Each structure stands twice: as C-alpha cells, then as structure tokens.
C-alpha cells in the first residue's frame, strides 16, 4: 500500500475517533441539560453569583463579588499568595 | 550529431573577484550511438563539460545543441525537463540513496512525472530482471554489494529511456572485475543505440574497444587524444 494511502487511513481514523468522542460528548451534554433546570432554580432562589470551583480563598471562590483589593488585604504591601491566583485572571 | 558544442565558454562568478573560466572555446561533437571518453585531470573542466552536455546548466556563450535542442535559450524549468527526457546519469560514487530500497532508487526519476506507482513498477521491473537484481528489489540500497550498486545505478540511468548516458568516473572505486563488467554493460547499451559519454582517466576505459573517440580535457580546452 502506498504511504499516502496509509496516511489517509490514519487521518480518517483520527477523524472517526474525534467524531465518536464528540458525539459521545454531545450525548452527555444533552443529559446534563436536564440538570440545568435544577441549577437555574437554585441560582434564582439562593441568589448565587459564583461557581464553586476553587475554595481556597474568598476571591477565587467568589470572584464576581469580591472587591479588587481582597488578594492583597492581609497587610500593607501584601503579595497575593494563593496558587489559584495564578490560574484566575483578575476580574475586570 | 546528438551532441554539438561550438565555441563553448563557461565562466563562473562572472564580473566578480573570484571569476573563473572553466571552459575556453570548446568544440566537441558526439554522433548518435557513439561511445566517447573524456580524459583529464581534476580541475581541467571535465565536470563543467559534463554539466553542459548533461543539460544541468547552459554555457556562458557558444552554441550547445543536445539531442536537437539548443541549451542557451532554455529557462531552467525546461532545461530540467529536457535533461529528464534526454540524459541518464551514472555518478562517480553511484549516489544511490542508501535508505531507499533498490526498486525505489531505480524509480526515483519517475516520481515527479506524475506516473502512478503501478506504472513505475512496470517500467522498473524489466530493468531489475535485465541486470539480475530482481531478488534485491526490496533491500535497502545501503545493504547491497558494490557490484549490485553499480547495476542499480545503471538501471536508474535507463529508467526514462534516455538517448544519452553520461558516466562520471564510473570505475574510480571499482576493482578490475567490476570495471570490466561495467564496460560490458556500456558496450551493450551502445549496441542498442544509446550514446555513451564517459569521463575517466582509467586505462581500462580509455583502452576499451568500445570507445570510439577519446577527448583530452586540459585547462578548460578540449582536443582529440591521439595517444
């Protein structure tokens, strides 16, 4: 078999795998949509403003509500020291 | 005449400090079906002469007609096409790509021509059989013997059925047995109507009965060798 044919088979295989993974993902997404109604109710009822992703510091647990100075509030000229501060960009 | 060179001048780096005149008013003709030997020391202009006859580049001035086509007017692209159709090269060290198989090496000149793999194999197979290397077709060329390499080189030169074969010092690294075998192949090709041009100062070549004419190349000039 010529190399270009083998390559085409390889790319086709990758495309099939990508397609299968995407289709499976979409099916999962459809299942998750059922949960979105639950989350909407909770958000509305409890007035929630942030996702529970990082719980180490209040400015990463509630970035939407925290004031800009919270990462540096411990003492004058304090440096931000929580690892998640690296991952989250400062809110605008 | 298949090769006609008239007042050929070739200058490298023209107009610059390191300007060199490699060929100085060379006149040379080769008849169709002849076997010709170019004899000369290193630096004599032999390689340049082979490059012009081999349609690698045109001369600086003069008239060079190879297989009916004048080189001076040809743009590089058409020169390449003309070379593909007209010339088969056999190099000094054979210049086979060692990691490609024997068959792949032989088919190499056909790849840029848009010929399908099946047709290429059909063109290469008779040559494999003719030169007795069919059993080595899938071997990496770097793993075959010197004699087999020589035959691969000849087969590759013939794959496009060119009318002219150019061999540059083909026996320089061969023992006498392989050298004789090479010359036998060249005589055979001559008998089939090919025009053979061999650049060599090996007495085995110059004294071979199949050679019709010997040209001496010295300091960029060519003369008939009557010795």
């Amino acid at each position, binding site marked *: 078999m010529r*190399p270009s044919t083998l390559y085409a088979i390889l790319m086709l295989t*990758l495309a099939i795998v990508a397609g299968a993974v995407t289709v499976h993902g979409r099916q999962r997404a459809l299942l998750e949509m059922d949960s979105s109604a639950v989350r909407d109710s909770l958000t509305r009822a409890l007035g929630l403003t942030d996702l529970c992703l990082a719980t180490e510091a209040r400015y990463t647990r509630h970035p*939407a509500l925290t004031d800009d100075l919270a990462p540096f509030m411990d003492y004058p000229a304090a440096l931000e020291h929580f690892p998640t501060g*690296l991952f989250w*960009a400062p809110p605008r | 005449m298949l090769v006609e060179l008239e007042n050929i001048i070739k200058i490298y780096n023209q107009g610059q400090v390191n300007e060199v005149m490699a060929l100085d008013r060379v006149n040379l003709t080769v008849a169709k079906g002849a076997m010709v030997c170019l004899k000369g020391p290193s630096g004599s202009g032999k390689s340049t002469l082979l490059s012009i006859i081999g349609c690698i580049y045109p001369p600086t001035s003069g008239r060079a007609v190879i297989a009916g086509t004048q080189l001076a007017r040809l743009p590089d692209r058409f020169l390449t*096409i003309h070379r593909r159709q007209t010339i088969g090269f056999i190099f000094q060290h054979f210049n086979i790509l060692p990691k490609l198989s024997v068959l792949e090496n032989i088919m190499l000149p056909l790849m840029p021509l848009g010929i399908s793999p099946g047709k290429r194999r059909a063109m290469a197979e008779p040559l494999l059989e003719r030169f007795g290397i069919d059993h080595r077709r899938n071997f990496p060329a770097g793993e075959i013997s010197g004699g087999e390499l020589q035959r691969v080189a000849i087969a590759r030169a013939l794959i496009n059925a060119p009318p002219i074969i150019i061999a540059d010092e083909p026996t320089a690294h061969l023992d006498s047995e392989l050298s004789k075998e090479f010359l036998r192949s060249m005589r055979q090709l001559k008998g089939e109507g090919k025009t053979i041009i061999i650049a060599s100062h090996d007495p085995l070549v110059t004294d071979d009965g199949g050679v019709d004419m010997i040209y001496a190349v010295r300091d960029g000039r060519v003369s008939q060798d009557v010795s």
Partner: protein
Amino acid sequence: MREFSEKHLNILDYALSSLWRRKGKNLSVFLVFTFVIFLLASFQFLTRSLLDAAQATLRQTPEITIQYMVAGRQESIPVSYAAKIKDVFGVRKVTARVWGYKFNEVTGSNITVMALAHFPRLDQEVLAEGRFGAKGEKGWAVIGQGVLDDLGLGSRRSFSFFRPDLTLKPFTVSGVFGPESNILTYDLVITGIDDGRDLFGMEATLATDLLVEVVNPLEIATVARKISKALPGTRVVTRPQILKTYEAVFSWRSGFAAICLLSALAAFIILAWDKASGMSPEERREISILKILGWQTPDVLMIRFWESFALALVAFGCGTILAYVHIGYFQALLFRSVMMGWSVLRPGLSFVPVVSFGDLFLLFSLAVLPYLAATVIPAWRCASVATDSALRG
C-alpha cells in the same frame, strides 16, 4: 489534471517515506508537538467550558447585588438601606442576605455559609434528600455534597460550628443538595437568616449584602446607577458584570495561560531552531541527487512542506483529541492542582468540553502555522544546493 494529482501524491509518498526513514527524530518532534497542542487545547477547551458553564449557570443570578464598602473592603450593610433602595423606581424586591465563610480546622477546608429569610418550594427539584427548613424553624441546615464528606457526617445528620465567642452553634441537617448542582453547592451550607446572624455574631440590623430584583431586566444598568447615586458608600454589582467577570477570569491573560503559552513558545523555538539550523550533508546530497535526476526546486520544497504538514496535522489531531479526553473524561487532571490550589473541598469538574470551529482554527494558527513557517522557509535553502554538486562527488 490526473498527472498533476498523481505527481503530488508521489511527492507526498516520498515525503512520508522520508519521515519514516528518520523515524526516531521525527517521533520525538511528533511527541513534543502533540504535547504542546495538547496543553494549549486543554487550556482552551477548559476555559471555554468553564465560561459556558458560568454563563449557563449564572444567567439566573441576582440582577443587582449591593455591598457596603469601608476603606475599600466589604463590611456588613445596614438592612435599613433596603427601604431606600425600594424607593428607587424600577425596583421590584429587595432581599437581605447573610453569608460568609467557616474554616474547618480539622480538614483545613473553607465552607460557605449562606442564610436567607425565605426559600421557595424547591425541595424535590434540587435536593437529593430532605427539605429546606419551614418558616420559623430554627437550627436547620441544607448542605452540599462536599460539606457532607468534609464534616465526616456519614449517616449522622447534625453538626456544630463555632460562633465568634467560641461557643458552639448546633445544626441539624434537614437536606442535602444533589450532585447535579455540585458546581454551585459543593461547599455550601444554607440556613435561616436568624441562624446565620447567630453563627456570625451579626446584629439583626445588618446583612452581608442586599439582593435587588428589578421590574424590567433591560433596565438593570439604569436602576444600578440610581442606587449608586442614592447610596454612595456602596458597591453595586449587576448581573452583566458578574457574567463579564467570568469572561475575564477564564481568559488567556491569566498567569496560568501565560505559563502554558511560554512553555509552548519555548518548545517551538527549540523545534524551529533545530529545523532551521541547516541541512545535514546527507540532506544536501539527497537534494542534489534529486535535482540532477530531474526533480525541480518546487518539487523539493513540496517534499519539505509535506514532511512538516503531514507531521503537524497528525500531531494536531492527536493533541486535540487527547485534550478533549483530558477535559471531558479525566476532569482536567493535569490542571486541577493549579486550578484549585490549596482548596480542600474540590468539586468534580465533569464538563463536556465545548469546541467551536473558531477555537480549532485559533489552535491551528497558534500551533501549526508557525511550525510550518519555521520549517518550510529555511527549506528555501535547498534552492541553493547546486544541481551539479552530485557530479563533483
């Protein structure tokens, strides 16, 4: 046409064979390239998914939230402010909320405690078990899955927190949030507002913030402006601002993104330098032989192009698929420690990665195009290989 396509297929065949002949070197290039794309794609898929989750989940977030600020920090807001806010035209309802954090010294976790005066009838929808407390009921708490595990309750349904004066405040677990709301409630304890004030030692005249519902959602900005004017010492946060926060938080300007990009860039520089550092004598010889056998310079360039492009395309495919699997099936395993840092309570990140054509195009442009440029442009040097150099031996 047929000859043209056959020629290019032949060149592709030669390029692929050439890649295979140097499989050791090309395999390492492939692995590095795949890893770089995997890293970039994982970051892109994760942040896109988080942003989508935030936008989907927080579309019902309060229209306006009012905080009281002193010296740039948030302090408790007087409940009496609600009356002033109610007077602003366009405001439908104002709700006081008490919330804060409790640190569990045993496990080192931070728990969010939220207390409200009223709870709509939601029990069956949102709770895996139990119910919210009834009106007037004291000492009840609905907790998230993470809190249930963190407090080590098992089958027990009571726990205590310390008040500021170090006395214990007992709670009875009246309900547990279901796992489908983990992204919101994993670390949450919900209780009645009086219990919340009791726990935090807050006076009845104060609240943590005030939630404002407006009559017309299109007038949120206008109402927010009016509230700011009426209450100058407050910070007014609107729903669009909350959603915008998440757009910024999960952006390429974060530190982690910069590290990913710099690593990728460094890897590329190494790759490109290797490729651009010139042809080996073997490569020069090969090109010279091809040229003398009738291959033209564009044909030789095409070999180099196909070598790079074929490798890059497979690496791109493998990298993006691996990234998708990494985010969608392994919960962003490699990023979790950075994303969650010192967090003890870590909700699962079961996202379905959101992949758009724009994202793939961006990744392709960032990863593949520079690699092609770095490998094909120096290949122009092959044009400098003299055709007759093979003759000279």
